[in-house]
């Protein structure tokens, strides 16, 4: 019963969130107009807003959320730590440092993205090199290396922010809080999302075994070292793709997997696709709110993922089992 209802509920929420994202914005558009524009498109202002502005933005938000939630699930299995989220290993810190340095020098979006990519790749390589020693990969060392490196990035970012001239400061702060208003085409992010979901849903049986601990997983026949490396790099690529699109949108990677676990989705065969859909819906709704609530003023989506997420998770945690 539960296993039949849950996928339907999550699919309905996912489609609903995309529809709501098309409905709300600065210009009021009615439900009929949205349906007309989707099924019988007629050139005009409504069509342009829906097809050229709101839909790309909604798709970017959805891909971002899906990637962050997927990455969160993977890192929570890898580190076997419930507090693990996509940013715990310093990937977003490295990306932020790269992007903000580029923004400080007045670079455009393309150069900023390249700098963010370089920063993230640097962070991934440093953490991996410092924590992996031939044949022996200690997850505690990995976690601590990531946390320490993140702290270092945070310090450097604070330094950049204090040195930044007023003109660049707002853009830099929006980047840090997570902001989709400059999100470009999300095709690449969707590709990464589809690939990582495919690979890791096929590996879901191994993830289930790894959740029992690396020693137990090896005793059951899991090639643990290879799996851990695959999870680390898979989660890293997913995080980088999300961060390049929307900056450091916080809380999704932590909240969504835990919320699903708390309502009983634990088997990774279900948890991974469910997290991707729920994470995508969550960021899409939060971003719609960020766009529409104080329109035409645009707010950073990262603020709303936290504002919406905190009460939801607190409610689920305080529920009697």
């Amino acid at each position, binding site marked *: 019963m539960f296993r039949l209802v849950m996928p339907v509920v999550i699919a309905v929420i996912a489609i609903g969130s995309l529809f709501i994202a098309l409905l709300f914005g600065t210009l009021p558009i009615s439900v009929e107009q949205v349906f007309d524009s989707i099924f019988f498109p007629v050139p005009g202002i409504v069509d342009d807003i829906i097809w050229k502005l709101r839909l790309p933005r909604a798709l970017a938000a959805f891909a971002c959320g899906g990637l962050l939630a997927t990455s969160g699930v993977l890192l929570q299995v890898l580190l*076997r730590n419930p507090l693990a989220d996509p940013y715990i290993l310093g990937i977003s810190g490295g990306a932020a440092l790269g992007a903000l340095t580029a923004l400080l020098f007045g670079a455009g979006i393309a150069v900023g993205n390249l700098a963010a990519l370089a920063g993230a790749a640097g962070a991934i390589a440093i953490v991996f090199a410092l924590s992996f020693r031939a044949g022996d990969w200690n997850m505690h060392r990995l976690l601590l290396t990531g946390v320490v490196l993140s702290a270092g990035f945070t310090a450097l970012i604070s330094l950049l922010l204090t040195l930044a001239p007023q003109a660049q400061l707002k853009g830099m702060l929006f980047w840090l809080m997570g902001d989709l208003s400059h999100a470009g085409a999300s095709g690449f992010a969707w590709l990464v999302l589809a690939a990582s979901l495919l690979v890791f*849903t*096929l*590996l*879901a*049986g*191994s993830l*289930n*075994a790894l*959740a*029992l*601990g690396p*020693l*137990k997983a*090896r*005793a*059951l*026949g*899991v*090639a*643990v070292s290879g799996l851990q490396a695959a999870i680390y790099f898979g989660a890293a690529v997913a995080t980088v793709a999300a961060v390049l699109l929307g900056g450091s949108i916080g809380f999704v990677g932590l909240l969504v997997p835990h919320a699903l*676990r708390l309502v009983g989705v*634990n*088997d990774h*065969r279900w948890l991974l696709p469910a997290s991707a859909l729920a994470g995508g819906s969550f960021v899409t709704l939060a971003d719609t709110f960020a766009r529409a609530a104080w329109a035409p003023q645009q707010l950073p989506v990262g603020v709303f993922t936290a504002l919406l997420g905190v009460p939801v998770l607190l409610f689920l945690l305080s529920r009697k089992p």
Partner: protein
Amino acid sequence: MLRIDQLTITAGSRTLCRDLDLVVAPGELWAVLGCNGSGKTTLLHALAGLAPAAAGRVTVVGRPLAGYSRRELGRTLGILLQREDQEFWGTLADYVMLGRYPHARSLFGWSAADEEAMARALAAFDLEPLAAQPYGTLSGGERQRARLAQLWAQDPRLVLLDEPLQHLDLRHQLQTLELVLGAVHSANRAALVVLHDLTFAGRCDRVLMLYGDGRYAAGTAAELLQPGRLEGLYGCRVRAFGSGPDAHFIPVI
């Protein structure tokens, strides 16, 4: 079934067992005895390829341990760990099912054979009534039976058991003993069992004693399960009641 050549096991700077040579034939049940910290668990981990030995060779069913992929080894050799440090998210049936991991043909979903093996394992350890319960709500003894059932579902030919009787009530100790004896003697498997229970050890065919200082002794249960030998191993006085497989050993207070 299992051949150990010149195996040396260390922990930090201590050499627990030096140059161990041992051949375990199909149909043989071995008891591994020794004091706390004498290297019993470390030996089992080395045999299962979970921790590297300091020196020596381990051959499992005619092939060196290093020649197996992890999954292949999981079909041939199974180990009951003494300790598992993780809560489990699913039901008891989900947990036992993970024993089928090395046999699963597709990485997604289980076959009818897997379901059958799981059901048989649950039945063997009286776990059917608890099958749908969340693993986290089980008692210590029920969890121990769940781990044994998982190993039964895994169905390996060479079985390594690290203190299988811990947390079990009297009836389930006896039941586990009989299941292990049956699996080894009638189904041509082999097993090494780390034990502190000398009554169970008396039912084993052979005994390996680890002294923890590099020395070891291996032989038939009849040869080694003698009060004098046991006093040398455990460092306390031991008295025997009865003889042969029914012998009981009691420490003298």
